[in-house]
């Protein structure tokens, strides 16, 4: 199937909330990041891999948006696309807009993007073990980040670096500056990575599964720290995870991704109480519950589709227990369940009955 067909058939744009409207209605904060119809495709020998295939979402100041979904559904590539750090040369943002405070990042030059990265959007990567270069002290690496944003003599840089470490609760930051990454624990390293990410005071931080590599006790500590930083600075956070517990704790709104698309998004409480896409339902059903004793843990039948060979209709249809013919034929448009809660499913359509 050609790219043109695909996009013509499933353009769910008309139902996307008007940012101005939602701002007035919600009053949570200004919309600082709008993503519209973002597509990031990989051109490989085996075909076009549609890692991100037309997603829309808004992010407001001071808010945390969770992006959940199983591995390989395009969460991380969404994050990288926002920073325009899609692995080259195979990957490319083919269409869409990323509006940061009204400026489209997709059309910016590489040089202009460098002014955005770190300073306006930053990112915390998954694995603290490899996020720091083993050859340099952490003070050195903090100064590298700071040096991209600020001019200043080395003394003021050191002061800023110490402040950054203090803000992530690293004890004795003056001494820690001279440490190498291998001298620190995983939790400590991830805090340093956090310090580097926030050191240039960005307005948006993307946290790509920042707690996956940490042990459970440290996870909670880290999440609290992120919340605290958010409260102090008014950061907007995009939190990528596959842990619903973390979503419930951290996020104001959630977007559920499946095979490169957002299938449902809405405020955390609404989405948890009233999951409207069968995939969201299935995901929640597969979270084991402590109070129930079951023989078998629930799991979703089948495999997610290959991103280079997507079905023409709803991407979840082949695994969906309620799928009908129309689900296999055409991608469902967006349906509004409440001002903030939308889902892409034929079940919600008037033609379903």
């Amino acid at each position, binding site marked *: 199937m050609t790219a043109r067909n695909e996009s013509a058939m499933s353009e769910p744009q008309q139902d996307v909330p008007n940012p101005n409207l939602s701002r007035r209605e919600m009053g949570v904060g200004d919309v600082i990041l709008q993503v519209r119809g973002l597509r990031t495709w990989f051109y490989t020998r085996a075909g076009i891999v549609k890692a991100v295939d037309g997603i829309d979402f808004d992010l407001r100041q001071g808010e945390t948006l969770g992006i959940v979904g199983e591995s390989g559904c395009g969460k991380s590539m969404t994050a990288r696309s926002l920073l325009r750090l899609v692995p080259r040369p195979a990957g490319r943002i083919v269409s869409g807009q990323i509006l940061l405070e009204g400026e489209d990042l997709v059309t910016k030059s590489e040089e202009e993007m460098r002014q955005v*990265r*770190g300073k306006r959007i*930053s990112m915390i990567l998954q694995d603290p073990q490899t*996020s720091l270069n083993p050859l340099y002290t952490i003070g050195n690496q903090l100064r*590298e*980040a700071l040096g991209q944003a600020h001019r200043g003599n080395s003394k003021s840089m050191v002061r800023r670096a110490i402040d950054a470490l203090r803000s992530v609760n690293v004890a004795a930051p003056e001494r820690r500056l001279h440490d190498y990454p291998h001298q620190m624990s995983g939790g400590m390293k991830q805090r340093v990575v956090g310090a580097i990410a926030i*050191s*240039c005071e960005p307005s948006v931080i993307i946290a790509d599964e920042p707690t996956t590599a940490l042990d459970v006790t440290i996870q909670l500590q880290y999440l609290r720290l992120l919340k605290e930083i958010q409260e102090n600075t008014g950061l907007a956070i995009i939190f990528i995870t596959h842990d619903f517990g973390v979503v419930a704790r951290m996020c104001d709104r959630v977007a559920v991704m499946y095979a490169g698309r957002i299938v449902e998004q809405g405020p955390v409480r609404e989405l948890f109480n009233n999951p409207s896409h069968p995939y969201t339902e299935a995901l929640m059903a597969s979270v084991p519950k402590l109070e129930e004793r079951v023989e078998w843990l629930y799991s979703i039948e089948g495999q997610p589709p290959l991103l280079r060979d997507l079905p023409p209709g709803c991407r979840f249809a082949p695994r969906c227990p309620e799928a009908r013919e129309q689900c296999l034929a055409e991608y469902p448009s967006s349906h509004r369940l409440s001002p903030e809660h939308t889902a892409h499913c034929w079940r919600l359509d008037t033609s379903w009955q």
Partner: protein
Amino acid sequence: MEVSLPTPAQAGPQAGRVSRFVREVRRYPLIPITILIVVLIIPAIFAPWIAPYHPIDDGGLPNRLKPPVWAEGGTWDHVLGTDKQGRDILSRIIHGAKYVLMVSLSVIFVSGIIGVSLGLIAGYFGGWIDNLIMRGVDVFLAIPAILLALALVTSRGPSFGVVIFVICFILWSRYARQVRGEVLTIKNQDFVARARVVGASHFRVIVRHILPNVFNTIIVLATLQVGFVILLEAILSFLGAGIPRPTPAWGLLVSEGRELVISGKGWQLSLFPGVAIVLVVLSFNLLGDWLRDRLDPKQRNL
């Protein structure tokens, strides 16, 4: 009697320091290093002062083909004997060390810089740049070096420059290939992504984050290459496509003795320069192996 606890501590520093020194020293590959210093580095630097005779001036007919000192008819005047023109072989070997060192250092640097930069670019950017460079590497690896050298020598005449050019021509591709492979794994590590996330340019990422991480590999490769370079230079000189006569390059010295080896009259002409080549190449290879073990991140405990 007083408590004698301090005694070992008092005696300790002296003995401890010595044994610590011995232990420290034994961690290094002493034999190859000693051989290199004695056979290559000291002669290369101090040749005019330590060589007993001039390397090129005729020694006069009466002194022709003197055997080494321990053979029948040998004298202490010429420890390793003399060649057809009565030149002292030891002096010629000592002076030859300079050329060995010059050729290998310049080749390693030039081909290293070219190969490493191209390897970094190919590995980091990937895509058509990678394809272009790596196909180039394949082409260069397919060119028969010796034939190329002979062709160049017949057209341009033998010279120091031709030798360096030809060897660089073959060697850079090995660096490029090795470095590219390493870069492919390093560039996918999160710290590279992190550097990009905070706004570092491609150039900065390559120079500051990737290059230092492949440096170990480059050093090991360079050390192992030195032996190969010396051999190649010797081969080229032996074939007459290398450093021009009468420069006492070691390969040339071996080649000068080749008819006499068969007749049995002048075996010392080829043997001693040959031994020097073997010792130096072997030492460099041992040193390279040691460095590889030493710099292997899995064995490193800093």
